[in-house]
């Protein structure tokens, strides 16, 4: 194996050698430089693989032939090998990426480039403090040089600021080092660590200076204006190096040197890291410049790792994995993003929509962003999960909370960016500035994207509860993604449905015997297949649709089949990501998908937070831990409940839903409404079953929340003019019922809940499919622009009517089962007033049911709809399959409800309902025989119809306008279709209840955060001197907080 010292020799020799060429042979020089970098990568790579094999042990490299501490020594161990490999790889790919730029800049720039990478290698390997200083300086100067690659005025300014800042801190570092030498008599890092430098006051000051400077090298918030300017002004290729390679090396150094300051100093490093992570991401929310935004994000991510480094004593054996996962994730994703930025060459993130013209880059971009936020299957997901678990297990709840807040803040700007990229208009001349003709620019980006996925896969063995089977559906989705651009939607639809059916078949045995899981699994999978069928009505390729839909369903399936919190959370995040991509496909969905994502991410972090307590309780990821929470159970359960309620869109957390569901594509709405929302219900059920006595208060509060959600949702639906938004609000209301029902925690309540879950799944699928199809056919969302369609679409009308009768809970259809169970449950539970609110909501539901039926199917047919035909069978077939389901449930409710009843009794929710053999259900309060009701009503209907026909006889159909209308005969359908503001009277009376108070509440919150961020970022005044002053202030404040006592 080639000695690591050759990395230095090779790089320096090559750098000096390039000097021979002067200004000539530039192309050759670039190739030489790349060859050198490749050789360096190979050297560290062979070491790394040898260490992973276990065929070598840690090597100490002595220079000058003397043993340390008398001479400088380097170390090559597993960690050093890994870090140098990352750095060299980024160097190699970064050099490849910068090929043209470096060639233009000349041989000097290439020398600087290779020296920079070399210095980072030495920084990682050296065990001598002063040697570390020298190579840190080399790195700084080389960076200052590379900043100038583009020779712009801004870059010059940034470079000067950078030099001033690094100059000041390196002087202080030198003072620290020389005094450390004075106290210990040695410059060897291991010797200094062994010597208890921090034991004396002065020794502590020396150690403080060393550590604080190394922290400052990582640009901690808020003393980091100089770093941000570099990110903004430098060539993105250089930004990638600064963020990925230099940041990585600096982290390693901090880790190496930190023990000098002693155990007691670690918490301050944690604080520094967390403040940086939260602060930088928060301030970043105001940023629109892509490179500067990446700077904020880089600084934040590095801050997170700094915090992890400070947490080393706490994290124990997981430390290395967590730190490495976060670093590798940051390196790969951030380098990739910077490189994309260099290809896109658009300063403002709102212009990044041009990415859509390059699908490969767009997918890479999305992979990087989702990796940064910590979505599966990327390494940061694994790292963050384990980090939060360990933090809460070790009682560092505040730290965990702040880390999650910081992650959320990062999401705020990252998803705005994604939204811009996916939805903004592409300007006509936008592609002109693109610089992706050269393979050497694009290839590194794609490599990073592949690498970050691979790194996620490699993380599996390190996290408790992670199985490689979670990647199987992902592999299928990747396959669909690969064929996505070539095949028409029909083929992909068939493949997707087949894939889902097979997956269902394979996965079902895992949950067989668990009825609760089976029900939800059935809803997700059968619902998934049924909601995919309307896709046959769509034409074209529908690029991106199938990967997204399958991602969502894969996530849903994983949630159900997982036996541990990790798997659950893995599925939860997959589902969130998939549904986000589905929702954002709608024409006007950008803002709605954004708010959906923010609520989802916040909810997911709350869930993760709550899972931490479960992990704490049993020391593993198993779901059983949820029932064992002893540490702050109320906090944990509340966090989990709120987290799940972001998905069920309960009152206060619902504002994303109407837009997200209403504006989604016609076949996406049933997926995200009828199917997806049940994931939140499943989560809540799981939670409630485990809360035990700790949950009494929470359940009581949630009962009220559910009741008001139902009222608010239904009332808002009544006042909607937009057909799909009406259905969306209706979903909020229905989910409110469900929340209320399961909050009762009784057999009857839960039975009602399950009835609602099943009914809502069926009727909302039908409604969204059919109404979605009608919206597409008529070309309008507005109910008052439709009308009279019963004559054109009788089958659609019957489907909607059945669904609406079910929703309204009228006997004899299955909706009444829910109502009946509800009444019984409410009285037995004693939640009377809440119950009345829910029943009031129920009667209101009746109103929008009528409004929708009337406005779409009755009244006046519009002139431009005269040529409409019945909806496509692709929509009607799944709708009628679901109607068959409703009918079965209505006629034989006991077939469905009796097993569930037995399940609930076995769950100790009480035995309060008995079933007779003839289908009569009895509680202590009441009885109901669904079977008999159906027989009687059908018979009566038949007899009455017969009677009516007898006395009426054969009729002839009237013309459309053949009505008396204020003594005039109308001639325009528009003037005679009563639909707009239909319930004006109700609105006048109680419309104030649904004044958009909650929306404005959240608007105010977001404005406040934004204003705060805008205020804080004023500290980045742009003045290099001020930045230097801020560094000094930072040191002073840090000193007086940490050592002031």
């Amino acid at each position, binding site marked *: 194996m080639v000695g690591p010292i050759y990395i230095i020799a090779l790089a320096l020799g090559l750098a000096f050698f390039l000097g021979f060429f002067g200004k000539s042979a530039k192309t050759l020089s670039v190739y030489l430089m790349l060859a050198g970098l490749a050789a360096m990568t190979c050297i560290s790579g062979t070491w790394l693989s040898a260490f992973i094999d276990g065929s070598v042990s840690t090597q100490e490299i002595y220079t000058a032939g003397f043993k340390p501490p008398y001479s400088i020594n380097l170390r090559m161990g597993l960690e050093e090998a890994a870090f140098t490999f990352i750095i060299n790889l980024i160097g190699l790919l970064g050099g490849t990426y910068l090929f043209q730029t470096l060639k233009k800049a000349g041989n000097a720039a290439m020398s600087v480039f290779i020296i920079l990478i070399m210095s980072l290698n030495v920084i990682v390997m050296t065990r001598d403090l002063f040697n570390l200083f020298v190579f840190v300086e080399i790195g700084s100067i080389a960076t200052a040089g590379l900043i100038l690659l583009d020779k712009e005025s801004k870059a010059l300014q940034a470079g000067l600021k950078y030099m001033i800042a690094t100059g000041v801190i390196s002087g202080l570092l030198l003072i620290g080092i020389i005094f450390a030498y004075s106290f210990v008599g040695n410059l060897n890092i291991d010797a200094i660590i062994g010597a208890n430098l921090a034991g004396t006051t002065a020794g502590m000051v020396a150690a403080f200076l060393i550590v604080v400077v190394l922290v400052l090298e990582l640009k901690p918030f808020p003393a980091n204006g100089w770093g941000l300017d570099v990110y903004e002004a430098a060539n993105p290729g250089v930004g990638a190096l600064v963020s990925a390679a230099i940041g990585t090396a600096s982290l390693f150094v901090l880790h190496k040197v930190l023990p000098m300051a002693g155990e007691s100093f670690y918490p301050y490093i944690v604080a520094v890291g967390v403040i940086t992570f939260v602060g930088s991401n928060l301030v970043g929310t105001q940023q629109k410049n892509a490179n500067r935004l990446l700077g904020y994000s880089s600084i934040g991510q590095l801050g997170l790792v700094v915090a992890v480094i400070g947490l080393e004593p706490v994290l124990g054996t997981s430390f290395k994995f967590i730190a490495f996962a976060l670093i590798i994730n940051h390196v790969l994703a951030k380098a990739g993003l910077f490189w994309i930025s260099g290809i896109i060459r658009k300063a403002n993130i709102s212009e990044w929509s041009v990415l859509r013209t390059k699908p490969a880059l767009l997918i890479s971009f999305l992979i990087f962003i989702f990796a940064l936020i910590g979505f599966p299957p990327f390494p940061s997901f694994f790292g963050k999960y384990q980090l939060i678990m360990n933090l809460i297990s070790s009682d560092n709840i505040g730290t965990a909370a702040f880390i999650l807040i910081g992650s959320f803040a990062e999401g705020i700007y990252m998803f705005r960016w994604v939204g811009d990229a996916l939805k903004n208009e592409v300007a006509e001349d936008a592609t002109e500035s693109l610089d992706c003709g050269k393979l050497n620019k694009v290839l590194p980006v794609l490599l990073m994207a592949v690498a970050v996925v691979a790194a996620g896969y490699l993380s599996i063995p390190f996290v408790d509860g992670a199985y490689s089977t979670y990647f199987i559906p992902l592999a299928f989705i990747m396959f669909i993604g690969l064929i996505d651009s070539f095949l028409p939607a029909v083929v992909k639809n068939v493949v997707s449905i087949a894939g889902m059916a097979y997956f269902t078949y394979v996965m079902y045995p895992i949950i067989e015997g668990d009825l609760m899981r089976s029900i939800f699994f059935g809803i997700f999978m059968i619902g998934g297949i049924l909601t995919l069928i309307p896709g046959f009505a769509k034409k074209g390729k529908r690029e991106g649709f199938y990967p997204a839909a399958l991602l969502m369903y894969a996530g849903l399936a994983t949630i159900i089949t997982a036996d541990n919190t990790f798997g659950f959370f893995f599925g939860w995040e997959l589902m969130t990501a998939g549904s986000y991509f589905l929702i954002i496909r709608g024409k006007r969905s950008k803002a709605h998908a954004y708010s959906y994502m923010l609520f989802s991410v916040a909810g997911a972090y709350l869930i993760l937070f709550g899972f931490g307590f479960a992990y704490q309780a049993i020391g593993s990821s198993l779901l059983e831990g949820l029932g064992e929470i002893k540490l702050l159970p109320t906090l944990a359960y509340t966090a989990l409940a709120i987290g799940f309620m972001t998905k069920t869109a309960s009152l206060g957390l619902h504002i994303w839903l109407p837009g997200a569901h209403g504006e989604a594509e016609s076949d996406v709405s049933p997926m995200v409404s009828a199917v997806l929302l049940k994931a939140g219900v499943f989560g809540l059920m799981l939670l409630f079953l485990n809360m035990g006595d700790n949950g009494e208060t929470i359940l009581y509060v949630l009962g009220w929340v559910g009741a008001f959600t139902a009222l608010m949702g239904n009332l808002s639906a009544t006042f909607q003019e937009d057909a799909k938004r009406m259905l969306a609000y209706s979903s909020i209301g229905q989910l409110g019922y469900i929340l209320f029902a399961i909050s009762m925690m009784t057999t009857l309540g839960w039975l009602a809940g399950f009835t609602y879950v099943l009914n809502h799944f069926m009727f909302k699928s039908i409604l969204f499919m059919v109404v979605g199809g009608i919206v597409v056919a008529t070309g309008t969302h507005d109910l008052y622009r439709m009308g009279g369609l019963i004559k054109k679409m009788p089958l659609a009308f019957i489907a909607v009517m059945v669904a609406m009768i079910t929703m309204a809970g009228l006997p004899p259809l299955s909706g009444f089962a829910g*109502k009946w169970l509800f009444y019984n449950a409410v*009285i037995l539970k004693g939640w009377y007033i809440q119950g009345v609110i829910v029943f009031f909501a129920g009667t209101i539901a009746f109103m929008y049911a009528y409004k929708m039926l009337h406005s779409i199917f009755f009244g006046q047919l519009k002139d431009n709809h005269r040529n409409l035909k019945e909806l496509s069978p692709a929509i009607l077939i799944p709708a009628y399959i679901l109607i068959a389901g409703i009918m079965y449930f209505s006629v034989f409710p006991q077939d469905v409800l009796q097993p569930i009843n037995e399940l609930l009794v076995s769950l100790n929710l009480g035995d309060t309902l008995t079933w007779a053999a003839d289908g009569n259900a009895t509680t202590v309060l009441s009885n109901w025989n669904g079977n008999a009701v159906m027989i009687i009503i059908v018979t009566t209907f038949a007899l009455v119809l017969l009677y*009516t026909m007898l*006395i009426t006889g054969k*009729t002839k159909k009237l013309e459309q306008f053949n009505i008396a209308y204020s003594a005039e005969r109308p001639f325009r359908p528009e003037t*005679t279709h*009563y639909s707009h503001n239909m319930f004006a009277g109700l609105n006048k009376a109680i419309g104030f209840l649904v004044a958009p108070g909650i929306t404005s509440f959240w608007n105010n919150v977001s404005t406040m955060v934004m204003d705060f961020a805008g205020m804080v970022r004023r500290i980045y005044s742009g003045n290099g001197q001020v930045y230097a002053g801020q560094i000094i202030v930072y040191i002073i404040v840090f000193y007086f907080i940490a050592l002031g006592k």
Partner: protein
Amino acid sequence: MDYSITKFLWSLLGLFIILNWGMLMSSTMRRVGARLAGRIGVPMYQPWIDLAKLMALKTWLSHGVMYYIGPVFRLVGGVGMFLFMPIIFGSEIWSNYSFSGDLILLLYFQSFGMLGMAMGASDSSSPHASIGISRGLAQFAAVEVPMTLAVIAIAIQHQTFSFNSIMEAQQGGVLNWTIFTNPLASIAGMLAMLGAMSHSPFNLVKAPNEIPIGPPTEYHSSFLSVLRTNSAIIHVVEAALFMNLFFGGADTWLMYIVKTFFVYFISVFVGMVFPRMKVEDSVRWFLKWPTAVGIIAVLVAAYWK
């Protein structure tokens, strides 16, 4: 579960009695109203004449399938309500098909006819029909609140939703009637009844006199006869519902007739005294006083439970 033909015929007989009693009651009230206004009014047999005439008129015209089926829905709603409620307390013959459900079923089945009717009238394409329906639904929603509160209060009080059990609890003297044992719930319930009966002041839905608004306006001849039949039935059934809940039910046909007349009379009498309200006012009114009374009733019932 008795689905025998005998049972069916007994129910049919009950239905026939109720239909005629409903028509008689309606003509009585019309006469009472006329006298109050200083007119003579229609003869007592007028409803029968009207019904016969309407049935005899064969229509040729329809706006569509739903228009045709709307009255059917409506009548099924009325008949169904009748069938799901026992007529005479303690009588197996006159228990109808009340075994299939109880108060909850009845409360929800009320809407069945309404929805069908609403759709049928909508199918006529006349905006006036839908205007009337929208008002009716709004008012119905508001009325349901005190109604639900009253029902819940009674259910708490008697710990049952079963008609038989509720009536049973009220046997043994006038003072055992809910109106005396639970006056607050009864007040809320009776106030709700005023709305449910759609008489003045809560009859903007039909508003028969001033403007041609509301579902019945759209129907003529035999369709109207179906609706008339239903309205006769439903008035009695509604009154019987309140009788069963608050006035001890009926253990003989005589009591049935007396008590339903009395309940029905209350609603008509109020209508004669108060002028019609706008729909937003009636919504506000129902959500204010009757609801407040109902909430207190529930709280009191829950307290005494």
